[in-house]
């Protein structure tokens, strides 16, 4: 932002920007300015209007309302856009969407260099430099289609930067990429921006990436709800988060009595967002809690996702589902519903799943985490009988799905990443189709249809084709179809990709009720670490193996035991600070937005010592703060350590 002050014309200015598709308003009334050298992040779910704004700024999408200019050049007409195209780089949405699958890394980069008429010697120099920064040199002969999601996106970034644009527009570059690669991607982009003074307008659906950006714009339903630094935005929304622990959550919810519109359940906690200051929140809530035996509240600042939801609620553009009223947990009773015994699957010479063992009990929500290609989906496919295991056994409801008759298949529900719906069938037709397929009793099918329409709030869309539903509703319909036959075991393969936070919350409320109240065993995979926090137990997969399995709290505690407690350091030069601490023997530090995060076994001592070191080295003024680990921290920590071990082993060999 300092850079922006030096130059008169901002990189991007939008005034009252709006875009319609076939008369339907997709985006409207966007006022926004992105300064030079700034990394501006548009954050919001699918369909919020992020892509429209980014494409319009790249000059590849015409718009109807307001003004939009890039480097002072208005983009009102097609000819205008041509004038700025050599100064901008666009990376469209979708993994490797701008690349050629059959070409190698080298060939892809050369192609883009030639397309942009970069002189040969200059192109070679830039290529070498960018490949070094992105650590892709070792793979330069590998065809793009054989790269992991994270590597594809890094290559996409290199190809976007090869003509040295002054402005890059990146549309959801991290969607579908695992948390480790996501963090890596933002770190690389941040470094390139700092070193070269490039401006970037990027978008993401992941709230937890907000801290990677200088400024953010929260988008929802075609509107820009708020903009500013992540801290600014949180302050604009205000509010207080009360995390309440109570032995009897039903009594607690009754005591709250619908006074608070934003209540949510996370594990054993009830989380209440309260508009107003901490003091006001306490004054309102504490008397209510006094009536609930054993209830205890901790007050905290809301995280960005809570603030986002609060904003959408305050503007009246979203209604929130009430929290799930659950029966008290009965402990692990009875036989496990899903059992994996050294489950293994080979694809040729490649071992996709390597001796995976775990079990899931009725009433439990079990999450499988892991990067792309870690083997999560393959496990689910073996358990549901789509794939044959190479070795080991998977048992569901007491039977092996491979040999089990149809009767067992009638007891499981499955929902794939693609929300396997027939888009040209209506809501009702989809539900009835699956009802018939699963042989639901004819008299019962009407009642089940009503249940789906009510619980998924789809009654108004009964005769609407699935293709016309927004993504969040489509997902709920898919869940309804997977549940129409009241299965005892439910498999969900990345069920919430691209769904907005409010939709995700409603989805989780349903899952919690199914598990706790109806005793359904649920196995799911996810990329959203905020979602992983909501599972009862988790298994983290890496290269086909389960490398950690525990409750979310247990996983965090294990990391703290092994590697230390998380300290967040505010300092002027996080990159340099990181180098300094690494030299001093701190193995686990990473740059997190404008902060440096460090794991330390001696937090009390280091709270004072680390800022003192940084101040002495001229990297201050520094300030340290203790932070609790997030699931994302745990994931990145574990996977990074494993990757480092693999590299070491490869070098030794």
């Amino acid at each position: 932002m300092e850079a922006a002050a030096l130059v008169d014309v901002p990189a991007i200015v939008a005034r009252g920007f709006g875009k319609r598709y076939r008369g339907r308003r997709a985006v409207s009334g966007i006022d926004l300015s992105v300064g030079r050298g700034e990394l501006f992040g548009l954050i919001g779910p699918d369909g919020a209007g992020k892509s429209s704004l980014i494409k319009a700024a790249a000059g590849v999408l015409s718009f109807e309302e307001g003004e939009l200019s890039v480097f002072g050049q208005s983009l009102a007409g097609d000819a205008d856009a041509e004038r700025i195209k050599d100064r901008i780089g666009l990376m469209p949405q979708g993994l490797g969407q701008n690349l050629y699958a059959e070409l190698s890394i080298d060939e892809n980069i050369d192609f883009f260099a030639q397309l942009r008429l970069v002189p040969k010697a200059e192109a070679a120099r830039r290529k070498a430099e960018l490949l070094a920064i992105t650590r892709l040199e070792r793979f330069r002969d590998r065809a793009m289609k054989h790269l992991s999601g994270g590597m594809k996106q890094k290559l996409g970034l290199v190809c976007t930067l090869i003509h040295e644009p002054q402005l890059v527009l990146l549309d959801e570059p991290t969607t579908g990429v695992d948390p480790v690669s996501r963090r890596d991607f933002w770190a690389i982009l941040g470094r390139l921006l700092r070193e070269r003074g490039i401006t970037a307008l990027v978008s993401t659906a992941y709230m937890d990436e907000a801290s990677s950006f200088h400024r953010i714009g929260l988008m929802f339903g075609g509107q820009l709800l708020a903009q500013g630094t992540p801290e600014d935005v949180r302050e604009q929304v205000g509010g207080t988060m009360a995390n309440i622990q109570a032995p009897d959550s039903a009594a607690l919810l009754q005591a709250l009595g619908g006074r608070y519109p934003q209540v949510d359940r996370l594990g054993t906690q009830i989380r209440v967002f309260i508009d107003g200051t901490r003091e006001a929140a306490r004054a309102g809530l504490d008397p209510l809690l006094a009536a609930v035996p054993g209830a205890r509240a901790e007050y905290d600042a809301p995280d960005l996702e809570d603030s986002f939801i609060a904003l959408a609620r305050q503007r009246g553009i979203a209604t929130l589902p009430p929290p799930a009223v659950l029966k008290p947990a009965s402990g692990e009773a009875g036989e496990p519903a899903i059992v994996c015994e050294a489950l293994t699957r080979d694809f040729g010479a490649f071992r996709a799943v390597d001796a995976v063992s775990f079990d899931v009990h009725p009433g439990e929500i079990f999450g499988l985490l892991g990067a792309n290609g870690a083997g999560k989906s393959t496990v689910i496919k073996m358990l549901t009988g789509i794939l044959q295991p190479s070795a080991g056994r998977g048992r569901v409801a007491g039977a092996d799905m491979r040999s089990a008759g149809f009767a067992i298949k009638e007891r499981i529900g499955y929902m794939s990443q693609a929300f396997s719906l027939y888009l040209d069938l209506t809501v009702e037709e989809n539900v009835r189709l699956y009802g018939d397929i699963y042989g639901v009793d004819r008299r019962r099918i009407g009642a089940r249809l009503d249940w789906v329409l009510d619980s998924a709030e789809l009654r108004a869309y009964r005769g609407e084709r699935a293709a016309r539903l927004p993504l969040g509703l489509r997902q709920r319909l898919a869940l309804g179809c997977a549940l129409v036959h009241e299965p005892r075991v439910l498999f969900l393969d990345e069920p919430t990709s691209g769904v907005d936070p409010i939709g995700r919350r409603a989805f989780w409320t349903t899952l919690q009720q199914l598990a706790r109240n109806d005793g359904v065993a649920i196995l799911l995979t996810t990329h959203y670490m905020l979602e992983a926090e909501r599972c009862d137990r988790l298994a983290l997969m890496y290269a086909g193996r389960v490398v950690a399995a525990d409750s979310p709290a247990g996983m965090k505690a294990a990391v703290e035991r092994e590697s230390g407690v998380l300290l967040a350091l505010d300092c002027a030069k996080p990159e340099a600070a990181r180098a300094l601490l690494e030299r001093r023997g701190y193995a686990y530090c990473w740059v997190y937005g404008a902060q440096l995060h460090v794991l330390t076994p001696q937090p009390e001592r280091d709270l004072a010592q680390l800022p003192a070191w940084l101040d002495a080295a001229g990297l201050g003024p520094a300030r340290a703060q203790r932070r609790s680990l997030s699931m994302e921290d745990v994931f990145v920590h574990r996977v990074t350590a494993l990757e480092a071990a693999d590299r070491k082993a490869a070098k030794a060999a």
Partner: protein
Amino acid sequence: MSAALRRPGLGIWLRRLAAMTRKELLLLLRDPVLLFVIFYGFTFDVYNAASGVTLQLKSAAVAVFDLDRSAASRELASRLQPPQFVPLPPLERGGEGQKLLDRGQALMVLSVPPGFSRDLAAGRTAPVQLQIDATNTALATLGYADATQIITQFGLEQALRRQGISEAAAAELPQVENRVRVWFNPNQEDAWFMGISEMLNVVTAFAILLTAALMVREKERGTIEQLLVSPLSALQITAPKVIAMVIMIHIGISASLLLVLEPLFDVPIRGSLLLFALVTTLYIVTLSGLGLLIATLTRNLAQAAMLGILVLAPMMFLSGVWTPPEAMPPAVRMLVHISPLYYYSDAGYAILLKGAGLDVIWPSVLGIAGLGVLIVASGLSRFRRQFG
């Protein structure tokens, strides 16, 4: 648990089949592009083939380079007349004929040398030269045959006249008369043959491509996994697609026969439509096996369509519709027997034009059925191996 593990009853089995078939039909009916393609294929495409494609010589451009400029040479030239021929303006210089042939503006150039009429009058052999553009061999053959017949007739008449035999006397000369009886298509209407042929081709194309498309679409959208996890057998997943397609194609054939071929081209439907429908159903089921095979080999719609065309082309060449098997090289003649279209077109023409019954066409039906068992079994087994 043991009570719950019972085999599903027939009622449930049929209900699943019915639900899946209903789904396929709804999806087909809600795809306006696909519906249009099917409608177009069975009506306009058949109409175009029946009205546009002819196997007879029509309006072939012919130029005459007459160096004799006599009554005889003019009479010869004047006999090249419509409808077979369209005479071009007479040529003035030697190179012009070659140019017309090179540019494709004339199919034939007839050159009459000087002294043509003098030679005729003197009773000598009078040569003329006929140049033909044989780029399109079928057209050239027809042109050659028609032109040769006209010139021979002219020569014969000249010879008789020189012998002093009057036309009346000529009629008394002994002659062999070839009395042709044309059966099944007495006026030799190409529209009958071409129209039906195209309809059978359209049936073939849809039966293969539609099955493949319906199957690959489930793969692309990921719905196939949902079905595989559900209590449906491979047959219950695939059969509904075939049933839906059989229904659509029968509607298409009805439109073809009753809205286009019969009213517009007077194609007689002599045999039993029920028998034709049954044979067609057997044929579609056979080809759907091919579609299923294609779907297991491809990942998306584009690949499936390409592979489908690759399979379709040789099937049509080998069907015997374009070239009778007797005219093919011996090795290829054997291959004809693995083209289901060969049997189907035999049976189709026999039923529709000859009014043949099962007693006549049973070998063809047996051929389709035999191939059908093989193809469908391998298609299903590949499907089971890939997904089961």
